[in-house]
């Protein structure tokens, strides 16, 4: 399922880091899967991408699929454009989503829908995969919608 991009085109496009640290995450999004890091030493989830487990210092972190649903941990409605691509955008919403199925790690995305909608901390949200398959580089953004 594809959707109209939430933001106007022209912002920097995400590419996997050269060292490969977050490649499985970006590849997973293209297949509409949310893959995050989980430690083989202590079995805890960890995000953002890092080479070592912050808890047990294991270097053995795998990418594992987790449910692409969470709750709004915090939010912001942005009005002032700080990039030319957003000059005609109008307000837009960024949310920080907490993932209860992955030890409560957090991930950033846009909240799709009316940019003037009420923003409620604690509201349940689910993922919307925003594919940019004709883009260079090909990528998929992980967006969120109120459930």
């Amino acid at each position, binding site marked *: 399922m594809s959707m109209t991009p939430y933001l106007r085109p022209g912002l920097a*496009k995400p590419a996997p*880091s050269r060292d490969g640290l977050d490649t499985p995450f970006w590849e997973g999004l293209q297949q509409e899967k949310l893959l995050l890091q989980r430690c083989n030493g202590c079995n805890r989830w960890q*995000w953002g991408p890092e080479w070592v487990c912050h808890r047990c210092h294991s270097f053995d972190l795998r990418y594992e699929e987790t449910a692409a649903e969470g709750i709004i941990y915090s939010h912001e409605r942005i009005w002032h454009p700080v990039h030319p691509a957003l000059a005609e955008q109008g307000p837009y919403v960024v949310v*920080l989503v907490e993932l209860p199925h992955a030890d409560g790690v957090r991930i950033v995305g846009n909240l799709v829908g009316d940019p003037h909608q009420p923003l409620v901390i604690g509201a349940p949200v689910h993922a919307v995969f925003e594919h940019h398959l004709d883009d260079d580089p090909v990528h998929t953004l992980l967006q969120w919608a109120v459930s």
Partner: protein
Amino acid sequence: MTTDRTLRGKAAVVGVAETEYYKWGRSPDPEFKLAIEAVLGACANAGIDPADVDGFSSYSNDRSDASRLSAALGCKQLSFASMQWGGGGGGGSGAVANAAAAIATGQAECVVVFRALAQGQFGRFGQGPRSRMVSGAAAHTLPYGLMSAAHMFAMKVNRFMHDHGVQQEALRAISLASYAHAQHNPRAVMNGRPLDEATYDASRWIVEPFHLFDCCQENDGAAAMVLVSAERAKDFDHNPCYVLAAVSGSQHRAGAPVHNTPEYASSGFTTVAPRLYRMAQMGPGDVDVLQSYENFTGGVMMSIVEHGFCTAEEVNDFLTVENLSAPGGKLPLNTSGGNLAECYMHGLGLNIEAVRQIWGESTCQVPDAEVAMVCSGPMVTPVSSCIFGSEATL
């Protein structure tokens, strides 16, 4: 043994100066020249020969390299060159701590703490990167339009306000007090541009909960302060302004990537403030005047809470223009106008203003100010704080 492991009273500020403050991009001079001008000014203010400066301490990856400064000023030698890690203004008081530590431990005799900025020469802070592609940690935020400091911090403040029922009026009071103080300060860029409640309320959103007037300016200029040992400080014209405490740091995993720090809705001072007070052998009730770094008013609000001036639940009652105004408020705040209304010199102007309060030289002087605190760079990591005191506080 541990009683000796303190900076309390070991070093003192004996000279301060700033260049003229400009709106961003308006400086007629390049950044390095501004830095030199500020250092020369601080030396003149102290009455010390610049050749006798033997140390430099800065932060936020200042581009005016210590060795180049030392050469340009004809310093007899360079004994100490220190850069505090971290961005924004988080190192403003950390640079003071590093300078005082160098002096206290015999590494240097006379250390200049400085910061210089010419954004016209090197690009602005408040703009998103223009690259076509992004990878690494920024790839997980930038493509969603989360790309400026305001965006990074508004989500922390929104969560804090939600958790504790903080009202917009608390943020507004911080802005109004700063602008009111700037009207007395001829150095302030916003001098002659007073702000009232209606203008604040009608001003556009940058990102909720920050109106335009909740956000710092972007400026060009430079600021510097000269520190020597407490023993030597007595030989200078100014009454010594002692460093009673200066510490930096951050909480457990504050640097966890992509907004995953455990203590999220925080200015970052919950571990720093207790160490600050322990070193100063003081509490918040001893502080006569506060200079608290405003990247955004929400950061000031959380800094005030985390330094114990009020609880999170008391914010709406405590953060009023009356309480935050010099000379008579309960906690006079940002008495030069601060980053909002004097100048955004990455907060070093706040340290200078704290020193002027101890010297009795502020344009919004708090009567008999003996103890002045600075909180530097809320919401970044590491942050830092310091407390200056008069002779009477030793």
